[in-house]
């Protein structure tokens, strides 16, 4: 009786896992062994290790790294200061709120702000620097990406800062630690979990952005995501697209393993 009812709950869920988790991943792997005409081949993998794709992979990682780094540098102080405010839950909600606005709309807004006659250029003009090309540059791409990922970086760091036991800070103070030493030796190590989680949440999507590269970077930046989209929807070379996807999945797993051990204690 008990097993029966348990199986009953399992049916729809396991069906979902089989159909939408396991099958798609296997299909991607399967398709990576076929060329554009449908012949079985290892050609895609050989292609991936040519300079064109390796360079693209490298630059994709480089941009993702920069985006993660800047998000972290901005998010950590923000999260820290947020925990110090009154009504911190409300402020946190206000920080998170923009992330609920459709991503495309935010990207579109930057088309106006960074455009030739946009707000950013008017500002530069007023400062006496003069207007310049901002849209379709590396700067605009990284800025908008950081803008979009910032809330996702702030949230886990905020959570881990919030869980920090305040008596530890008092102890550090009593023992004569300056605020910098306290930060370096106590606060940061104890919130490393949140930092890792944040980096994971930002880095993986940053590897695979494609609409921002098209809208904001004007196709100048090509990430793994852009390449996959290109192969699947434009050139229709699903085999090569799948091969890149396989490498993206491998990269993802590595990142998860590196940043994943959240529950087991760090120390």
């Amino acid at each position, binding site marked *: 009786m008990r097993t029966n009812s348990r199986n009953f709950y399992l049916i729809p869920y396991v069906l979902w*896992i089989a159909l939408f988790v396991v099958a*798609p991943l296997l299909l991607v792997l399967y398709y990576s062994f076929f060329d554009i005409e449908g012949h079985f081949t290892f050609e895609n993998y050989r292609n991936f290790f040519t300079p064109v794709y390796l360079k693209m992979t490298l630059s994709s990682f480089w941009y993702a790294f920069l985006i993660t780094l800047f998000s972290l540098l901005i998010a950590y102080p923000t999260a820290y*200061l947020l925990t110090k405010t009154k009504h911190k839950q409300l402020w946190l*909600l206000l920080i998170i709120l*923009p992330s609920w606005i*459709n991503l495309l709309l935010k990207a579109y807004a930057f088309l106006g702000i960074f455009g030739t006659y946009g707000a950013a250029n008017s500002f530069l003009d007023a400062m006496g620097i003069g207007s310049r090309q901002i849209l379709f540059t590396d700067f605009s791409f990284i800025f908008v990406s950081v803008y979009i990922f910032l809330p996702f970086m702030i949230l886990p760091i905020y959570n881990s800062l919030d869980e920090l036991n305040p008596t530890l800070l008092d102890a550090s103070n009593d023992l004569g630690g300056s605020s910098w030493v306290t930060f370096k030796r106590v606060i940061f190590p104890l919130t490393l979990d949140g930092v890792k989680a944040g980096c994971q949440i930002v880095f*993986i999507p940053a590897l695979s952005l494609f609409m921002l590269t098209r*809208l904001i970077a004007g196709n100048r930046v090509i990430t793994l995501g852009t390449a996959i989209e290109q192969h699947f929807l434009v050139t229709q070379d699903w085999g090569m697209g799948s091969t890149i996807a396989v490498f*993206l999945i491998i990269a993802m797993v590595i990142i998860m393993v590196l940043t994943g051990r959240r529950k087991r204690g760090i120390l």
Partner: protein
Amino acid sequence: MKKNRKWPAFYLALIFIILYAPIFYLIFYSFNSGGTMYQFEGFTLDWYRELFADTRLLIIVLNTVIIALLSAAISTIIGVAGALAISYARKRRVKNTLLSLNNVLIVSPDVIIGASFLILFTMIGLKLGFVSVLLAHIAFSVPIVVLMVLPKIEEMSTSMIYAAMDLGASRFDVLTKVILPYITPGIFAGFFMALTYSLDDFAVTFFVTGNGFTTLSVEIYSLARRGVSLNINALSALLFLFTIILVIGYYFITKRNEKPNGMGVRQ
């Protein structure tokens, strides 16, 4: 510490301004009679009028809402079943396996989900359009619902179930009269999260939508690629309003949980 009390407030204010600037920039220019996003010529409601006269766009909005509501409802059902299945799993190994499989779609980049679903649907022979988009949205919403519901089930004391059974309740009664009412806040939170994920999604939809069917995100993307048009601004103002209402609803639902970390998105 005491003398620099000003800069934290300044820093936080700056972050808030940057986070909200693009959104208000969009809304501000939606009232611009000039037709561009850089010179404000005069106040007008023309863009809103044009928006409401555009039946094609209204149908797209309707599609988006229908997809969101349907996919959120169905994924909530599957997700609750999944959460129950996971919590009933006695063996640690089974439980961990189910949980890891559950999280695959959450951490996977959208591009991979989109591309692999495209392969899947094409393999099955499903015509791309409403059904494929709906299935994809259900698929990526299920794990979110599971993650929102599972903690609620885990925190429920088993003695309540035993008490109900001692009092002669059937398993169905236990489910509908004890378990479901207890986890209702989690279910609602899951439903709202699924709803917003569905409304917000671009990348996955972009892959599995055919030629005839679009959702709002995809439509905004293709409009934005063509350049600035203030219809989108008017649309974004309305969406912003709608999102705020959703978030407030979600906030109050999770508030009722009285758990301090009711903000969601915590893996």
